[in-house]
């Protein structure tokens, strides 16, 4: 279930990306955080307890939203613009 609800920019061109291997869509102008949370309710599992996390400050301060890509690279979701074909692993897939 998604956490965020889109209020505007509904008709921006869709941008396809992958969440735990599943093809999903964001919109042009989305941060990676927005794109993930309009599709899911967490962006990663926390380091120790593996509890779901969804970011906190959305301004690049708390560092809570670093996500991992399939190739092992990491990026800060709230300050990164969504690009097509991104393959994000939230580590939350059932």
């Amino acid at each position, binding site marked *: *279930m998604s*956490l*965020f*609800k*889109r*209020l*505007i*920019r509904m008709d*921006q061109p869709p941008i396809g990306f992958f969440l735990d291997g599943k093809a999903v869509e964001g919109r*042009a*102008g*989305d*941060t990676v955080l*927005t794109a993930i*949370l*309009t599709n899911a*309710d*967490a962006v990663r599992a*926390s*380091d*120790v*307890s593996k*509890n*779901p*996390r*969804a*970011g*906190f*400050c*959305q*301004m*690049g*301060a*708390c*560092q*809570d939203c*670093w996500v991992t890509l399939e190739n092992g690279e990491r990026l*800060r979701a*709230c*300050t990164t*613009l969504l690009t097509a074909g991104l393959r994000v692993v939230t580590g939350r897939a059932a």
Partner: protein
Amino acid sequence: MKPAPLIVGAGPAGIRAAATLVRAGLRPVVVDEAPAPGGQIYRQPLVPDGRSPEARYGSEAGKAQRLHAEFAGLLNRIDYRPETLVWNLGQGAADLMHAEKTTRLAYDGLLLAAGATDRILPFPGWTTSGVFTLGGAQIALKAQGVSIGERVVFAGSGPLLYLVAWQYLTAGVRVAGVLECAPFSAKFNLVQGFFHEPRTVLLGLRYAAALRMAGVPMRFGASDLAVAGETRVTGIGWQEGRRKYHLACDAIGFALGLKPETQLADLAGCAFAFSPRDCAHLPTRDGAGRSSVAGTYIAGDGAGIMGADAAERAGERAALALIEDRALPFDAARAILLEKQLATMSRFRDAMAKAFPFPEDWSIADETLICRCEEIAAGEARAAIRQFGSTEINRLKAVSRLGMGRCQGRVCGAGIAEILAEESGQSLAAVGRLRGQAPVKPVPLTLLDTLPEAAE
């Protein structure tokens, strides 16, 4: 030739500072983490999203447009570096990271306008998916056009609490409640505030009235907040006196006012002192914005919370000081006027700090996480304090992992100070502040390896 002055931050203070330096014939470097100027308050969307400035910035649309236009007019007369992080500085040079590459920039004159982040104290469940800072909730709406949930509770304190709740309401989102941690009686201080800045107080009252008209429950004196929900937020509980309350919701925006970003001032070697008004250790400065380090100036919320209008004036005033210190002609009358305006605004801020006081007795249960990066609970922090007899926050950091995580204490700093003060029977002023350390935000380790040597 002397290197150019460096301005860190392109919010209201940084923009006004840049314009002022340009007028004096200087060509400053302006470094900002965001992709577009405006700071957090006048943040721009990543792509045009069809919303008017009025829809996005509300009552402050005129100011946002003026500052954006002013900055656009400066572009070919400054060296603007967006999406760039200053991760280290000192000795007249700054290490900048852009696009995963780091470069060193020599500067002559440093003007820090780094802004602020939400001030947080922990409560049970605050790390649950769906709990965001008030600032984060606002950015989601303003810059991304999304709401953090469909049934949102806003909690904490500070003017932002009502502004963000009202912005969500106006955007058509269901606001399930506004929980103010300060008692209603504190609001009588707004009368004093009204005397200095009637417009600001009236706007705030308008937001509160609109929320009330819409039937949004508005509570005061809320304590012992607790999030319900395992994998995501399903509600929030709180207490008023001894009575317990609960509201169902699927997202929460929370903050207790704002906290200045002071890490770079620390790296620059500025002296700090405890500010009772901001309940934080802040770099000391004179009325013009000069820090204790010659050639280093501090302006805007990063020097102490005063709001965007004051930030504009402080940015300009600090730039005038830099110009004066370079022995260039400067407008002394203008400098006096700005300081006068800032003094009035400071009195307004005194009243606001009383109207939205930082909670005095925020109890943090042992099980509650205090550090969300490394997931350290308050009980572990207390055990470390007792075991090592810690009385100073950096010593505590050295013997525990508190404040060492990725956020560098930005989020957990206030909570750690709170617990240490309580455990060691000292004041917040006495426990000290977490010292800033390079890199002030995460930088790829591979970058650090390729550096000649870190600026010391």
